[in-house]
């Protein structure tokens, strides 16, 4: 077993054992923290498909995160007010069912990624960063002015949504759901990375001219990666809103995009467990240092500086040594 795989296994074991221990010690807040870390990790796994595999530096992923969040907020708010979402041409009612909400979140954010990607992928480099940022801001300001769903104040949900056969109101079962979804996303990432599609996508990141010369369209490969990426981040957004029982435009802010990207860079761009390591460290720091000072981001900044200057492979890269990921 390589050091990276050992590290991944330990990290996963920690994600299983720590909340169980917290449950035994009757410390539900620790479980909530762990849930936050797992959901952010899921969002970052989504970004890692675009950024790590495809080399697409998207500063607009908060849009997908927020669309997932609003998918949950809108459906649940209609369910709790018993007002249908639409009566014509067909009757659409709100729902408190997580599987339905997840599906809607995935489809809506995937569709948004398709539109944003189709337009943004005509550019590359700094222009791509700027245009994804611009689209993110468009969605952000749209939600701010969307009075029907809370505008600037956002939407509150009184009771967490349900999952068949589980008591999602208790912290541990909800955590379990989030962890299972994270594992599914990691499995998908691993499969994608090794698949023919992943091989071609990786080549399109390194030498687009070569990819075109063997008969493949680099832009189309990137677009598919961007859609999968956005859909996973959207799913994370629905879970995030469910965790807080609240969704607001803050989920779509450009700072949120930056935060998701920081998780990936902190953990290791292109590494399978990079986003997970990044999210665990981020949430831990946020909790520990956030208790000492409001300005804990200063320390995060220093750590990020250290990573970028001395450990381009991020935390996982530091542990695993050479090979596997990339800068």
């Amino acid at each position, binding site marked *: 077993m390589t050091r990276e795989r050992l590290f991944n296994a330990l990290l996963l074991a920690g994600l299983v054992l720590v909340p169980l221990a917290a449950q035994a010690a009757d410390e539900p807040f620790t479980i909530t923290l762990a849930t936050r870390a797992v959901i952010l990790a899921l969002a970052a796994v989504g970004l890692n498909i675009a950024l790590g595999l495809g080399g697409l530096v998207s500063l607009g992923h908060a849009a997908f995160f927020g669309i997932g969040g609003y998918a949950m907020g809108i459906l649940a708010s209609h369910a709790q007010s018993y007002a249908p979402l639409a009566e014509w041409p067909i009757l659409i009612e709100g729902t408190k069912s997580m599987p339905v909400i997840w599906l809607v979140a995935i489809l809506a954010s995937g569709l948004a990624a398709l539109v944003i990607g189709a337009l943004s992928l005509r550019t590359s480099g700094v222009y791509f960063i700027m245009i994804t940022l611009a689209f993110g801001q468009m969605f952000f300001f749209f939600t701010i002015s969307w009075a029907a769903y809370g505008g600037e104040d956002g939407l509150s949900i009184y009771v967490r949504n349900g999952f068949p056969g589980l008591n999602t109101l208790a912290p541990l079962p909800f955590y379990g759901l989030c962890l299972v979804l994270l594992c599914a996303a990691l499995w998908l990432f691993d*499969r*994608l990375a*090794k*698949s*023919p*599609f*992943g*091989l*071609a996508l*990786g*080549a399109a990141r*390194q*030498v687009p*001219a*070569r*990819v*075109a*010369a*063997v*008969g*493949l*369209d680099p832009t189309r*490969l990137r677009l*598919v990666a961007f859609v999968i990426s956005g859909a996973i981040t959207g799913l994370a957004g629905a879970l995030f809103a469910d965790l807080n029982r609240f969704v607001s435009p803050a989920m779509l802010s450009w700072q949120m995009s930056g935060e998701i990207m920081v998780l990936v860079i902190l953990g290791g761009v292109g590494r399978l467990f990079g986003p997970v390591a990044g999210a665990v460290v981020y949430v831990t720091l946020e909790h520990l240092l956030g208790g000492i000072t409001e300005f804990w981001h200063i320390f995060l900044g220093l750590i990020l500086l250290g990573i970028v200057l001395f450990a381009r492979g991020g935390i996982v890269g530091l542990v695993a040594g050479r*090979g596997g990921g*990339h800068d």
Partner: protein
Amino acid sequence: MTEPILATRGITKAFGALTASDDISIDLRPGEIHAVIGPNGAGKSTLIAQICGGLAPDAGQVIFGGQDVTGLATPARARMGLARTFQISALAMEDTVLQNVLLGALGASGRVWRFLRPALKDRALRERAEAALARVGLADHARTRTAELSHGQRRQLEVAVALTLRPRAFVMDEPMAGLGAEGSKQLTGVLDGLRAEAPILLVEHDMDAVFALADRISVLVYGRVIETGSVETIRNSPAVREAYLGDPA
């Protein structure tokens, strides 16, 4: 005369006041190696870019397989069987040698939209890729990271990737660039064996290789083809000597 597989008909391309391609008509017939030579700045790279689809000509057409492909993008031309190699190796350096040839096999087979099964487990693709590696003498390096290959091995890999496409024509942009005498000799042997499979349009600076391989040579100077003919014709042409070989005698 047999129908040419690849031909340009009067293609012209200007960058501002500079005419990089001036009414160029050349063709590539089955079974031949047609070399294009010319001094630096003669417009060889511009010509290749127009043939492969990277640049659109201002006027004229590119005909491939009897079809006008002037309006087609690079990937579409590649799928029709036009395989190119790059002057500066364009390889995925982080990937293994095998992955680089697999990429070629993927492009040619259209089996790229597979998301869950590892590429290395597709036997048909793998065999195709490994056969191409064996052809250029890189079979022992399949699992090597491409960044660790020597310059000469990278040049061989360039040819191997083109081979996986099982092309109807090769366009090679200075395949010998930067190779020593030994490497150049070896690659010359490989290319010599390829012409039976598909003809090669060969842009090359290495004159020994060109004279050893070419069935026909076209000489490009300031964007114009000043002469096309056999090795003997070109060697003895006064115009070529004056313009290119820089030998007034």
